[in-house]
């Protein structure tokens, strides 16, 4: 786990993504730098509009106009994905990086048996006989906890949780080094959600793939990730281990977010939450983008206030492995 010696699987270097709309340009992801070691689980938490899903699409190079990579590089084992030809990218995806998103269970073709959809996917990537492909589909079904005979089922014959498991099995089929999970269980019930996440954890331990787990549910990330990046208004504003974020969150947004979950046990008191709403990304606030909602941003300290409202805070390491982008933390550590 030492930060220096580990190899880097994926590196995001100052990645920005813009949506070029008719009358204006919206920068949904703004200068995000993150790296991921092989086998690591990195959580990305943020609210709607924070840019977390756009970032996932940038990692897989599946941004569609009007979205486009506006700056920075996405490096997978040192190779710049933006420089790959479409053909190369198509072979690269699924074999090296696969994606499971929230409504992934709805991507299954309703009039085709799920096993045949597996066969199609495998055939697109390698020379394989149908019987062998079906055999492998059955093996993968068992891996994710579905009876192998269900390869003959149509999607409507499976529950939402089972369909999401089928998609996860597909994502694992070519043994990629990285799986990006974008709100993989948000559409599912709590019990099914936990079953699937525990299975994924076991599969990860067995197969050794790395995971980027994107969700708005920070409490899930604390359980299932080694490091967590908190995104707000297109930027990473804090990065640390789940343990650190829980015990010592430093960015006022993270602090508010951690306090937004009412406890299931122990004493109950009224929680204040975070005032206001996430910003309109077409016209984000100047300076620190959290400043209109920040409880520590007021004009009494004129000099600090000027920085908070004018100057973009930069992500700085305040302790080994703990990075925060906040003027207040910088000035009053």
């Amino acid at each position, binding site marked *: 786990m030492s930060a220096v010696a580990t190899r880097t699987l994926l590196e995001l270097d100052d990645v920005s993504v813009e949506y070029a709309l008719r009358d204006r340009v919206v920068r949904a992801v703004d200068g995000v730098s993150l790296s991921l070691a092989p086998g690591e689980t990195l959580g990305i938490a943020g609210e709607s509009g924070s840019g977390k899903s756009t970032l996932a699409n940038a990692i897989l190079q599946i941004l569609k106009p009007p979205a486009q990579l506006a700056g920075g590089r996405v490096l997978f084992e040192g190779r710049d994905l933006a420089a790959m030809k479409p053909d190369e990218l198509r072979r690269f995806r699924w074999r090296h990086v696969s994606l499971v998103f929230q409504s992934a269970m709805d991507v299954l073709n309703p009039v085709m048996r799920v096993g045949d959809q597996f066969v199609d996917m495998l055939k697109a990537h390698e020379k394989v006989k149908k019987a062998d492909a079906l055999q492998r589909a059955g093996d993968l079904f068992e891996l994710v906890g579905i009876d192998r005979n269900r390869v003959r089922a149509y999607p409507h014959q499976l529950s939402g949780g089972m369909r999401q498991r089928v998609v996860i099995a597909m994502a694992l089929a070519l043994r990629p080094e990285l799986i990006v999970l974008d709100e993989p269980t948000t559409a599912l019930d*709590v*019990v099914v959600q*936990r079953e699937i996440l525990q299975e994924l954890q076991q599969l990860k331990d067995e197969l050794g793939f790395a995971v980027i787990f994107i969700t*708005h549910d920070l409490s*899930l990330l*604390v*359980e299932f990730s080694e490091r967590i990046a908190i995104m707000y208004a297109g930027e990473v504003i804090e990065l640390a281990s789940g343990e650190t974020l829980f015990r010592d969150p430093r960015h006022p947004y993270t602090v508010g977010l951690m306090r937004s979950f009412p406890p299931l046990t122990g004493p109950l008191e*009224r929680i204040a*939450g*975070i005032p206001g709403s996430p910003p309109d990304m077409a016209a984000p606030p100047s300076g620190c983008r959290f400043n209109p909602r920040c409880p520590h941003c007021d004009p009494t300290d004129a000099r600090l206030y000027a920085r908070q409202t004018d100057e973009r805070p930069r992500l700085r390491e305040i302790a080994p492995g703990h990075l925060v982008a906040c003027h207040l933390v910088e000035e009053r550590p």
Partner: protein
Amino acid sequence: MTAAAAATLEVRGLTKEFGRRPPVRAVDDVSFALRPGTITGLVGESGSGKSTVARLLSRLYSPSGGSILFGGEDVSRTALRRYRSEVQMIFQDPFASLNPVKKVQHHLERPLRIHGIASRGDVDAVVHDLLRTVGLVPPATIAQKYPHQLSGGQRQRVAIARALAVKPSVVLADEPISMLDVSIRIGLLNLMADLKKDLGIAFLYITHDIASARYIADEVLVMYAGRIVEQGPTDDVLQDPLHAYTKLLLSAVPSPEPGGHRELLVRARRPSTDGELVEARPGHFVRQPTT
């Protein structure tokens, strides 16, 4: 207002079946009471029947069996308009529940007009009061906005203001925060807790988020496969659950505390919904097989 025991809305043996050959019993012999100034949490997974209960109570569906009593009278004989002036709803999706081409003002004026609550002269004042009640300020500005100009949380507050316009005694809230961002959910929960206290409203709070039910509900009903399997004072039920399904549900809740999470209890077989609700502790009922 605080005749503590008097139920505002009560259901007895409520049952709803869909289809035939064989019919699916979505709600099966459900009984409970909503009291003024009390939030009753109805928790369960999707498919448990909790939304069907809300639709029965709002009279969007008619029951296949059992009865709904308002102030002691069977509501099947009450005119729908009169019923709706007492029992209001808040839905899950604040994007779908407001008309996109109408301003906030319109959404709040309509119930006032339909139910003849404000005269033409003081409509604006009443609308502004409603907006202030749900924390939308400055009201004069908000009233002139269209839904797309508001955030999800603000839209849900408009939906609550609309429900409050007719001065209801009961509000049915079906997953009112599940589509909102985490950072604004607490604000909505606090608002409901305040409305319960300040206006004495009886809330039915339907959710799959058990921690949020613990945060605001005085009592909880745990529903599974169409039946109530456990019910009682919130802390009693959630801190010391008795039914296998309640225990399973609690074990699935993610915990933000590192290492604090519970192992998921294995869903070895379907938790039983057989038997009768018996009072295991004062006010705390659990469904137990009759031996």
